[in-house]
């Protein structure tokens, strides 16, 4: 009986630990893609320029790059075109 309890406890512990590790790692993945911008403006309005602030310029390619980093937006669940219209 005692060994069964020990076994069950170990199993639960292993499950919790592996689950916790997965959750932790998953959270890191999500956290590493903090792609929303803190301001209430459009995302790329806060894009970088020269770090010293000199000669700031924004090119269309910068905006593309910012969009490509928009992890959330790219993979957001969006209505399918076939739900809206037909060709």
């Amino acid at each position, binding site marked *: 009986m005692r060994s069964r309890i020990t076994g069950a406890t170990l199993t639960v512990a292993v499950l919790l630990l592996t689950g916790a590790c997965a959750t932790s790692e998953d959270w890191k993945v999500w956290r590493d893609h903090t792609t929303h*911008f803190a301001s209430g403006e459009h*995302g790329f*309005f806060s894009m970088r320029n020269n770090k010293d602030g000199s000669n700031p310029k924004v090119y*269309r390619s910068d905006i593309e790059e910012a969009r490509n980093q928009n992890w*959330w937006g790219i*993979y957001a669940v969006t*209505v399918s*075109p076939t*739900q809206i219209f037909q060709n």
Partner: protein
Amino acid sequence: MSWLAIATVTAALLLGSAASVLAAPEDAITSVDLYTTAKARSLAATYQTQLLRFSEQIYHCLPWLGVTKNGIGFRQPKGAASDDRYLSVWISIDQADDGRFGTLPLAWRVSAMFSRYGVDMLRRMTQLTGIASDADVYGFSVILSWLKPGSDGTQPISETLALFIDKASLGDFLAKRLPASEFTSRATFNVFEGKDPVGRVPLEVWEDNFNSTFKLKNYVLAKGQKC
């Protein structure tokens, strides 16, 4: 990356539609061979140049907006019985997760997005040479998608407004001969949360000239482009 993360990304990739993929100007135009009727193919071929210019104008002059792949074309609303064609553009709006915006009810968010971007896009489409006066063009349509506020912590989803309006009503509305309330009652529209249809919401329209007046600070227009 753990199995859960892989599963999450895979699911997101599978669930995310082509609509979430933004396009370069030429890829934003629905190609002629994708249409199913002769009328649509004819319209697409006739106005190819105008549509490409429109796409380029959005790409270069309104960089805070993105057009989805195949997002510009002569569409029919889903389930339409007759071959009425609407010039349609599907816009994805870069909108940061604004706390104030997130506190608005869905109907207000939809109204704000339509007032700011939808009306301006409809106006621009009516100004494309020849299209509004073409008897084969029944109306205009705008599809607006943005990230649902607060959905970034779990599975991000888009909110989408899809609106279709006949060209006579749109012309009267833009000329201020038709009140906004009558315009919205005549329009066919649906709201979606992710892939889930919400249906019609109380849609209010007000003056908002952001899209036609805003200038992105320090933005350098590509050579050869005019805005």
